């Protein structure tokens, strides 16, 4: 069960209070009525589904009710940061990035061989 820091409540709470809400920073096209079928499929269906650092949305649905954004490593499930909705994609601090990737690598080996020791 994840522990998620809500940028509005300024506190980390149990995942039980939250609902995941998909990849972040996918803006609804302003001229949506005019886009092509391919563009629509891209907007509505296609997702990065990153292995590693991902930007995603959560809603503190049983808390303050706010949607917000998070940067998380999908291999370690570690949150790098959370930030309020409406803010642009926040860069991951270089140190975090390195550690996120390092962690991904270690865990990757672990999972790939189901517990192969170094």
């Amino acid at each position, binding site marked *: 069960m994840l522990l998620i820091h809500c940028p*509005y409540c*300024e506190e980390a*709470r*149990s995942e*039980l209070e939250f609902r995941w809400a998909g990849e972040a920073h996918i803006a609804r096209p302003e001229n949506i009525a005019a886009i092509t079928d391919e563009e629509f499929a891209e907007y509505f269906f296609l997702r990065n589904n990153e292995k590693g650092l991902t930007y995603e949305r959560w809603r503190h649905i049983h*808390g*303050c*009710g706010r949607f917000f954004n998070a940067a998380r490593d999908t291999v370690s499930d570690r949150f790098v940061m959370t930030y309020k909705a409406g803010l642009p994609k926040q860069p991951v601090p270089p140190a975090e990035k390195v550690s996120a990737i390092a962690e991904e690598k270690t865990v990757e080996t672990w999972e790939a061989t189901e517990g192969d020791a170094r």
Partner: protein
Amino acid sequence: MAKLGAGSIRTLPLAGFHGGSSAVRLEAAPPAERISLRAGAEDMAALSQALGLDLPVKPKTSAAAKGRTALWLGPDEWLVIDEGKGGLMQAAASSGVLHSAVDVSHRNAAILVSGPGASRAINAGCSQDLSLKVFPVGACSRTVLAKVEIVLLRTAEDAFRVEVWRSFSDYAFGLLAEGAQDAAL
């Protein structure tokens, strides 16, 4: 001929519910007036004045004055409870500023949980840290109690008010009753 005033008898969702243990007392709170208040930061001063209390701006805090309590639920959302004369909708309307006030007096029921085991009883179903350091007197939060959503307000070191939607109130009461029993062990 139909009796015009025949409808004005209230049937409370937790009427007849009581329970607890040697460590926890559980009771249904008397009816209260409640509004869900929504407004932007720029209009808070006017609304605070109209309501007669300072709407809290800090997450997880509440403010109380003259029988009214305002609970911070979100950055633009408060649950205002009036246990006195009422008039919340009118008061909010009199502020003259942009806001949304919706009467939810009957939407919620409240359960009062008190006694030395109160926080343990609630922790039977609520995952929040209810230590006094993290959840002091006056702290409040919307959260989850087992399978239902509640709003939790700490009214004293060993007393909480649990606000819950009425159709979930018997479930919440039942869960708290089991929690109360376990908290006494």
